[in-house]
């Protein structure tokens, strides 16, 4: 391997890793706030890419219908639980949030689509259609079992992943998509050609991580999310509702996953089931950070990307094997480094 090739592989790896990093940060965010290891996150990324491709082809994506169905289900569940709790006065707010808002988003997307909008608008539409999915799934699936064990939540999350993959196949068919490049810009750095798309991926990853950092450090809502992650009982005693914190975490996480889907779609062909590998590799990255550290997850994810890039050069068929084999020494190292993390989570 020459240094030229190494440089190309390195840059390629950093770009892939940056995409994983976005998903990994979202995974850590959801896990720390809700204790759910949200396996379908990769699927959310893939669905965003497929949604964007459908919008590009002037078809209304099935994810819009999914949002409508989920919104109706979530509203039904919310109405029943509010009536049971004897709190009918909260109904209008629940209706506005779980029914009107998602339907308005889908309606706006449907109307805007008729106008043949430019790419930038289509990107926003794809993100808007994707973002309600996981908060609604949270309301329908996870909130009734919010006090369950981490293992129960994980099992349900895996089941949810299979459901989403199936829906992806139903909505978008088995063909892969590749969306048009977001930029045609490219530059040469020390003899190595760097495409604008690669730069865009890295910049987007940095910008979104930076924004998240600012959100956590400088806003009360961001701090309330951190508080929920650090101490659930303590934060409830401050009047911070875990369910609300969870919804915000799912929205933000979906945004991160959606952005990564949009970034990856022009580079890799995305199929209805591509999300699983994206999600798992991001998960490996998140584990490097112990599932609790954002910088740790980002560094881990970039490491996974670089490893994958070099592994695919050495042996394309074995690249996933190499990446996932990495998990074993990491898990051994993590379990030796923190003997008490399990109990802390259960508390």
């Amino acid at each position, binding site marked *: 391997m020459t240094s030229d090739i190494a440089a190309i592989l390195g840059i390629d790896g950093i770009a892939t890793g940056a995409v994983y990093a976005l998903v990994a940060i979202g995974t850590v965010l959801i896990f720390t706030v809700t204790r759910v290891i949200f396996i379908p996150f990769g699927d959310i990324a893939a669905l965003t890419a497929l949604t964007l491709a459908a919008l590009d082809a002037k078809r209304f994506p099935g994810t819009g219908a999914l949002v409508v169905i989920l919104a109706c289900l979530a509203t039904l569940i919310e109405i029943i639980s509010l009536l049971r709790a004897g709190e009918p006065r909260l109904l209008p707010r629940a209706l506005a949030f779980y029914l009107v808002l998602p339907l308005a988003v889908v309606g706006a997307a449907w109307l805007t689509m008729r106008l043949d909008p430019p790419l930038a608008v289509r990107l926003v539409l794809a993100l808007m259609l994707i973002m309600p999915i996981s908060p609604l799934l949270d309301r329908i699936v996870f909130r009734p079992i919010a006090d369950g064990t981490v293992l129960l939540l994980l099992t349900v999350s895996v089941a949810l992943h299979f459901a989403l993959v199936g829906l992806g196949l139903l909505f978008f068919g088995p063909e892969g998509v590749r969306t048009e490049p977001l930029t045609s810009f490219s530059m040469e750095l020390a003899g190595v050609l760097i495409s604008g798309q690669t730069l865009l991926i890295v910049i987007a990853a940095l910008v979104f991580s930076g924004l998240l950092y600012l959100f956590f450090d400088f806003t009360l809502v961001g701090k309330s999310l*951190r508080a929920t992650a*650090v*101490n659930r009982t303590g934060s409830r*005693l*401050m*009047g*911070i509702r875990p369910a609300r914190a969870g919804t915000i975490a799912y929205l933000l996480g979906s945004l991160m996953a959606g952005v990564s889907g949009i970034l990856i779609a022009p580079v890799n062909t995305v199929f209805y089931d591509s999300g699983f590998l994206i999600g798992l590799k991001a998960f490996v990255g998140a584990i490097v950070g112990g599932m609790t550290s954002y910088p740790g997850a980002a560094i881990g994810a970039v490491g996974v990307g670089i490893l994958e890039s070099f592994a695919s050069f050495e042996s394309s068929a074995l690249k996933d094997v190499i990446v996932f084999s990495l998990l074993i020494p990491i898990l051994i190292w993590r379990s030796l480094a923190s003997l008490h993390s399990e109990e802390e989570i259960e508390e």
Partner: protein
Amino acid sequence: MTAMFSMTDVTVCYDNVEAVRNVSLSVEEGQIVTVIGPNGAGKTTLLMAAIGLLASRGRMEFQGGDIGKLAVEDRVERRLCLVPEKRELFSDMSVADNLLLGSYSLRDRSGVAKTLDEVYDRFPRLKERQRQAAGTLSGGERQMLALGRALMAKPKLLMLDEPSLGLAPLIVREIFRTIASLRDLGVSILLVEQNARAALETADYGYVLETGEVVQSGPAKDLIHDPRLITAYLGGH
């Protein structure tokens, strides 16, 4: 006079075991009421039920409204606050952030900076350590932070669970002085303590809880001279 907070025949169960049985108590506006009793009598359980962390049967009223079915967060929004025995601080976060989060339930954010100054005036140690992570504080400082964080919510009724637990005698005295001074601010207090003498010296009214039931109650200054209580809880001090 109607009480600002009252429990009537409150029963709390863990699975099928009744940890608290038919307890009735009330706190008047501006009063400090203490619940004393031995370890395992159900004192903490009682407060957990009062804030809504544990489900209970019976009536619970706060400022004329039934709060028995409200979630924890709704009770906090009505300015009913609990400083739990474990403090439940946000240990990875700074002292300043812990205090700021104490004010989370307040819709009106305009007074937050002023309340923060008041808390820092009351506990200068917290101001010195405002950038430090809460987890690095000493036991006494942690209790101050837990108290300060609760005060940030401008509570109408403050419930304190064993505020003196595990603290050095000098700091215990300081904490009780603080509790007594809160009454002057118009905060009503429900204080649960094993340190019965200090609690009764500070309180206006007291209840004695044994094996989940109220066995005795009366003005604190009467309880402190009660021969039975002196042998059971106050002796040797």
